[in-house]
Structures are given as structure tokens and as C-alpha cells.
């Protein structure tokens, strides 16, 4: 089991829980497990192809999974996973 820190925009899907638990051997499996527990959450984290959205950052403990093995990164019991939507925008409409 791992602990997952849910960002405020997704807490509506987790009954306002900030910290939830999940299971899986990789980040990808963990997201599938979260989807089973909290239907709709996967669509907020992943795109239509099932890949993590560009503007969603996921950390295992202190490490950004982009610098590890992406969604195939292995997780182990006791890890803390943080899901953090980016802060982004700008004046262009392009």
C-alpha cells in the first residue's frame, strides 16, 4: 500500500480526502487502482491514450517520475505519491 496525496482540484472525486491509499507495482497500476476506488480520477490525470497529462506532475517521495521511469516507475509499500497539477497559462491564445 502507498499513500497518495490528492490535490485540491481532485478532492471532489475522493470525498474531500487529501490522503488516500492505493496499490500497484507501478504508477500506472496505482492510477488504475485509484480509478477503481474513485471513478473519474484517471481521466483527470491521464489523456485519452492513458498517458499522464503534460500538465500533471507526479512525485514518488521527493522524485519527479519524469526523471525516473515515467508511468512505468516502480513503487513500493510505504512510498508517498503526490499528484500536482501544474501552474500554467499565459497571455497568448495560441
Amino acid at each position, binding site marked *: 500500500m502507498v499513500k497518495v496525496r490528492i490535490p*485540491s*482540484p481532485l478532492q471532489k472525486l475522493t470525498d474531500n480526502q487529501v490522503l488516500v491509499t492505493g496499490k500497484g507495482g507501478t504508477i500506472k497500476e496505482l492510477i488504475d487502482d485509484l480509478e477503481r476506488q474513485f471513478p473519474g480520477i484517471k481521466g483527470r490525470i491521464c489523456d485519452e491514450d492513458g498517458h499522464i497529462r503534460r*500538465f500533471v*506532475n507526479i*512525485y514518488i517521495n521527493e522524485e*519527479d517520475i519524469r526523471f525516473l521511469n515515467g508511468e512505468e516507475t516502480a513503487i513500493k509499500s510505504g512510498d508517498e505519491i*503526490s499528484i*500536482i*497539477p*501544474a*501552474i*500554467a*497559462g*499565459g*497571455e*497568448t*491564445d*495560441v
Partner: protein
Amino acid sequence: MITLGFPYFEEVIEHSKREYPNEACGILAGKNGQVKKVYPMTNIEKSPLTYLADPREQFKVIKEMRKLGLELVGIYHSHPESEPYPSKRDLEMAFYPEAIYLIISLKDIKKPKVKAFRIKDSQFEEVKIKVNKEVKNGY
């Protein structure tokens, strides 16, 4: 409504001017709509048209805020060449509906214009900014 002390308001404007002609961005942390700390962030896109806060920096700031018991009150960014209203991109990328989005227009750099909005489901609504003349009362 978002409330911030004048020094915080100034800090946000100064940061925006410092980054000009690129966009500046940052986090306004506090409680109950009142800003108690400003976290200027690095715009890793270093662009006059877009911003993306450095994710690593953001992660550190969020952890510090949690430790200090602060909430995400607002997110600010500058529009170096346009009016202080959310662009289509701002609306699409407003991932924090509970936050107030502060936009600083530097179209006339000598007279920055600041407006605040709540953005939800790509719709925006202007909210009032209350600037207290008091000194900093935060952390």
C-alpha cells in the same frame, strides 16, 4: 475577494516588472482569502506569451505551505503586453478552481493594472482585490 497587504501587492508587481518582457508567475499563500506569503516562481518557459511554474520549485513550495499551515489563496502571473483578463490559455490551464487568479498587466509598465478572477470550467468571474495598507502580517 482576495485581501493582501500593500507590501505583498508591491512584491507581485515588482516581480512582474523584473521578469518583463517575459511573463512572471507565483503563488499567493495564506488563509481565508488573506495573503500571508508570496512565493515568486521561476517561469521555465521564459516567454513573453506563456508561463509554466518550475514543477520542482512548486513541489517544494507546496510542502513548505503545508508545514506552515498555509493554503493556496491565489496564483498570479503577468501579461506583459495585454490587458489583465484571462486568455483562452489561462482559462484552459486554470487547474485550481479554489484559487483566485491575479493578473498583472504591464501594457503600460509605468501604470500596471491588476485584476483578480475566479476561474472554473473555463468560465471566469472578476473578484474584488482588497489591498491593506498595513505591513506584512504573515510568515
